[in-house]
């Protein structure tokens, strides 16, 4: 460090400031301007809960991205050769003792046991469930924030009739409960694509679309409020006087100032969407054809399975709780860090 700072800088300031090597470099760091994002990140790094939550979230992301390699490293896969080789049909479809819990000890072939009745490997299912959950939640968050930011920018900046119409739509969508919308669309998707070959892909896409359509309003409101305050500021007026086209003002002048509210709304959306994805599958209206933690929970709540094999229910349940909880707490910490009013 000292060798670096002792370069041209010290040479240049030789006459005015004698021997201020170490304190100077530290002071320079203090004084050198930090962007609000840097300050927020610094605050976040000092927040112990945030760091722990970030690590947990990272763990889930790694599980989701490397679901394939991890499951083959453990020698497990989603494919089940024959259910009767793994589960005991005479004993309500519970796994055979050699397959692990509940009737036998854990084995290396199936580190988390196998599913009752179908005999799928739980570890592989869990990993792919994590992937589905995070994929749907992130994609829906991206789309919903895009729509929200664009609507918020337009209605806040243009004002007048555009604002009236867009605000009306924001309010209208807010009155429709999301769960109900999902419930309404589910039988239609089922009716239309039930026999289609990629039914599960269609279900996932439909879910993402529904989540995005009913998730953008919060962001739009937040952004609209911010834009209303920003558009009267000098730099925006200067840009207008210079004759900058509206699109450029929106995206080059306003958008960079909206980073904080956008991050805040993303931090609110992600955990909600993760919870909703599994919740809908639990109700039997989300991803019903394909892998989902919610379906695992639904199956685990079957009373015989729950009485004999509660571990099966707890695996996806802990996954969802840990992921949603850490996303929520991390989001809370991010909101605190971005808020200049809170001091710790």
């Amino acid at each position, binding site marked *: 460090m000292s060798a670096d700072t002792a370069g041209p800088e010290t040479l240049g300031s030789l006459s005015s400031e004698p021997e201020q090597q170490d304190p100077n470099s530290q002071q320079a760091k203090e004084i050198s301007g930090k962007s609000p994002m840097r300050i927020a990140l610094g605050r976040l790094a000092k927040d112990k809960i945030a760091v722990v939550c970030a690590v947990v979230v990272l763990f889930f992301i790694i599980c989701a991205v490397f679901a394939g390699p991890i499951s083959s490293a453990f020698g497990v896969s989603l494919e089940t050769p024959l259910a009767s080789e793994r589960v005991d049909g005479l004993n309500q479809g519970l796994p055979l003792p050699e397959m692990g819990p509940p009737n036998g000890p854990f084995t290396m072939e199936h580190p988390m046991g196998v599913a009752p009745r179908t005999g799928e490997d739980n570890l592989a299912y869990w990993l792919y469930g994590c992937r589905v959950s995070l994929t749907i939640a992130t994609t829906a968050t991206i789309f919903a924030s895009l729509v929200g930011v664009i609507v918020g920018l337009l209605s806040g900046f243009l004002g007048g009739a555009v604002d009236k119409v867009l605000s*009306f739509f924001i*309010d*209208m969508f807010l*009155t*429709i*409960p999301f*769960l*109900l*919308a999902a*419930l*309404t*669309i*589910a*039988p*239609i998707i*089922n*009716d*239309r694509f039930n026999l289609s070959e990629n039914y599960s892909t269609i279900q996932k896409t439909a879910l993402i679309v529904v989540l995005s359509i009913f998730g953008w309003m919060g962001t739009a409101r937040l952004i609209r409020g911010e834009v209303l305050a920003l558009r009267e500021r000098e730099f925006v007026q200067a840009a207008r006087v210079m004759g900058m086209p509206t699109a450029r003002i929106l995206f080059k002048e306003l958008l960079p100032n909206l980073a904080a509210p956008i991050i805040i709304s993303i931090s609110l959306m992600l*955990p909600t969407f993760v*919870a909703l994805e*599994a*919740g809908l599958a*639990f*109700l*039997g*209206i989300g991803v019903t054809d394909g892998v989902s933690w919610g379906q695992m*929970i639904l199956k685990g*709540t079957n*009373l015989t399975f*729950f*009485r004999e094999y509660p571990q099966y*229910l707890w695996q996806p*349940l802990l996954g*969802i*709780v840990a992921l*949603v*909880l850490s996303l*929520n*707490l991390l989001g*809370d910490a991010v909101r605190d860090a971005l808020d200049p009013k809170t001091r710790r």
Partner: protein
Amino acid sequence: MFAYVVKRLISGVLVVTLVSMAIFLLFWFGPSSPAQPICDRETQNRCTAAKLDIYEKTLGYKNPVYEEYGKYVKGIFVDRTLTIASNDYECSAPCMGVSFRTKQPVKEELVSRIPATFSIAIGGAFLYLLFGVPIGVAAARRRGSVADKALVSSFLFISSVPYYLFALLTWLYLTITFEVPFFSDTGYFPITQDGPFKWFSGLFLAWVALGIFGCTQYTRFTRGAMVEALSEDYIRTAKAKGLPTRTIVYKHGLRAALVPVVTIFGIDFGTLLAGTIFTERIFEIQGIGWWSLEAVQGRDLPVVQATALFSAVVLIISNLLVDVVYSVLDPRVRLS
């Protein structure tokens, strides 16, 4: 005030109309054929093209969509007769169609499901306030203490867990594993038939699960509003006058703090009334949410359509009421 209410009513009617149109169009163009589910059901999955044609014709799916929507809207105000294949079904106003499964008018079944959902909503909402407000006040009075910090962080923790998992674990462990006496038999038992005790014990766990989970938000709001109210000048004046602490906190402080709480309470109550799908599904309470889930599984499109419309209308009305009540409670709010 009057002008404001009228304006809100007009926009509410507009929203209801738009939502009903959207739902109608969705069920018209969404399925491969809107008559397919009933045709499958009536013919035991041997629905031929000719039979489908009959169903489509009698249900009116061969007519232009706006004409049928007109008939649907008209049915809300006057009685109409619905024809499915060769049978006629009387449907009195407000007509919301005939269930594909039971062939009963949807409205009658909807009305019979309302008490269950209403019971959950009223008990849950009551517990929101019963737990939320006093805890919030207590936390605000001891602001900064260890107890306050522990409370705030533990409530943040509870509210970060998905509600349905919380309810599911409550139900599984209390009724299946531990078989808590009296409360294990969850479900809706009409107060008129089974008596108040059975009614109460069937719904108790659902209320508690809703109440504990929902009160966290109220604690946060009450605490925030109370902290703000207690630092106002008039509180200092009240203290200087030598009023007892109890009067200061509850009469002067809480009154001002409750206004925002009432607002979110109204909206939450409306949301509960509009459908407590997870609660009903988990605690096996056969209300509107349970019914709509059943309808989704049985592809009973008129029922799904009716529940969607019902919830939207309930939410719109409750939002309107909240805004009006808010202006009455808080004279500082001027509606325009």
